[in-house]
């Protein structure tokens, strides 16, 4: 069905006249809109199929779980826990309003046990719903996050990797950002960028090596530009290959996800609604509104969180080494206290 739709859309576009004569952007917008509606049809069909193949449906807030009688108790408990988690993060109004596709759980041949841990199943539901909620907020967030969505929680090792990245990647703003300069963090995170993103992120002497990192076999003209950039550092060639969508980000997408999470955590109740509030506002303004803080304060907090978890060499934390020593002492005491030789 999907293929037939795609074929229909392509034929419609081709039969509408020579592409060169049209406004290409308008055509692309139309295609995008048609693809969106196709996707909605596919989602609707999948939801209907799922509902038809299961005999019970659990509803908790905006969550609908299609399940079998065997898994009903588990699905109900997990859906309720997931609803509470979603409402805490996104607010009850958003959770009830968004369209979350029906989640199929525990069919006849499911490998999941009906006695599985409720919290694990709830986390699974919550992840799926979270993904759906973020993807329905347009391309502002998913575009900035390069197709991904903010996660649910961050561990110290996530921050530690960010610290390493800020020191390792030779981007212009990284060092100042690590040291706590909010303006530099805004550039590194792609929040405040001028028209020349490449020059704002990287000094020209890093461009040839950056071009090496782009990809191995770009098509025709780009391949030649890449080679010229690597071989001679030719600025024009480097600019052809090092576009903002291809270039190595000064801070990985995970850093951007952590910033959104921090803004939501700082903002407390209603933070998500303020983040997605309608209006043509920039991302940094939205984050600032969500957090209820000036954006520079939020960025300074982000940088401080990175610094706090920066690794400090293999001998740290010291308690890990002391724990190793303590376990060795316990084992040695057990060996020495043994009664016999063999």
């Amino acid at each position, binding site marked *: 069905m999907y293929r037939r739709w795609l074929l229909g859309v392509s034929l419609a576009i081709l039969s509408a006249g020579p592409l060169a004569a049209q406004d290409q952007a308008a055509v692309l917008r139309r295609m995008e809109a048609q693809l969106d509606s196709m996707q909605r049809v596919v989602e609707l069909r999948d939801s209907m199929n799922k509902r038809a193949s299961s005999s019970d449906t659990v509803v908790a807030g905006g969550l609908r779980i299609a399940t079998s009688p065997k898994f009903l108790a588990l699905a109900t408990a997990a859906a309720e826990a997931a609803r509470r988690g979603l409402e805490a993060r996104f607010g009850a109004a958003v959770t009830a309003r968004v369209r979350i596709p029906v989640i199929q759980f525990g069919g006849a041949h499911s490998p999941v046990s*009906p*006695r599985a841990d409720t919290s694990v199943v709830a986390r699974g539901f919550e992840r799926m719903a979270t993904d759906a909620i973020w993807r329905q907020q347009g391309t502002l967030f998913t575009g900035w996050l390069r197709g991904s969505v903010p996660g649910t929680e961050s561990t110290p090792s996530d921050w530690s990797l960010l610290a*390493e990245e800020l*020191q390792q990647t*030779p981007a212009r703003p990284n060092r100042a950002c690590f040291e706590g300069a909010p303006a530099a963090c805004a550039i590194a995170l792609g929040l405040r960028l001028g028209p020349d993103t490449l020059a704002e992120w990287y000094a020209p002497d890093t461009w040839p090596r950056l071009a090496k990192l782009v990809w191995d076999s770009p098509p025709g003209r780009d391949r030649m530009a890449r080679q010229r950039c690597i071989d001679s550092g030719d600025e024009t060639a480097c600019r052809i290959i090092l576009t903002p969508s291809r270039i190595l980000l000064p801070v990985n997408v995970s850093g951007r996800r952590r910033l959104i999470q921090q803004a939501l955590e700082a903002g407390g109740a209603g933070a998500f609604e303020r983040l997605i509030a309608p209006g043509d506002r920039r991302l940094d303004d939205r984050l600032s509104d969500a957090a209820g803080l000036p954006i520079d304060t939020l960025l300074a907090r982000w940088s401080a969180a990175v610094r706090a978890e920066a690794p400090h060499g*293999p001998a740290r934390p010291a308690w890990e*080494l002391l724990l190793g020593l303590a376990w*060795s002492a316990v084992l040695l005491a057990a*060996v020495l206290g043994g009664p016999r030789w063999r």
Partner: protein
Amino acid sequence: MFRAMLWSQWRESRLPITLLAGIAFATPLLSMKGMSESPDRPWAAWDLLGASMRWSATYPIVALVAALVLAAGAWRPDHRTKHVYALSLPIVRYRYLLLRYGAGLALLFGIGAALLAGASLAAFRVTIPPVLHAYPVGLTLRFCVAGLFAYTLLFALSGLTASAARVLVALLLLLIIVSIAAELLALGWHPLETVMDTLLSPYSPLSVFQARWMLIDV
């Protein structure tokens, strides 16, 4: 008596110990090969951290192998002679074991000293950009502690009595059988997984192996 023990242990495992000390000395030097260029290169931090990361898995492996060789070497003479020599000595059992254990430990620290020398030399030869730091002492400390724990554990296992070894194997088998049965009966309970999670938790003795074994780090 300690010197005699040390000598017998050295004789027992001198070839692998020398080899391991050589590897411990050479690994940091190899990891920093080709890095001794100008420090103001914009990609210096990228290259140094990348090289440190690539070689970081080597250190815990060397620590583990060293512990295995030394623990096996510590008990081999006694197992071969059915503990006749040990029983003929006018010292109590725990003191004898402590001497054997100490001899192995001294050799383990010898390998650690080789690592310290290699790591210090490697860190001295490269020019480190201001954002990064070299950790030859920290790396050696972690190596010694990880090696110490693995050595103690393997020393304890090698010295088990036959009946204790049987009990240990029986417990392991029981754990595996219970795990399989729980899986087949869909009890939603995974004892083997729980044990593995516990062993790899931050407070387990094995956590010392999990950290970043980086000679150059931020």
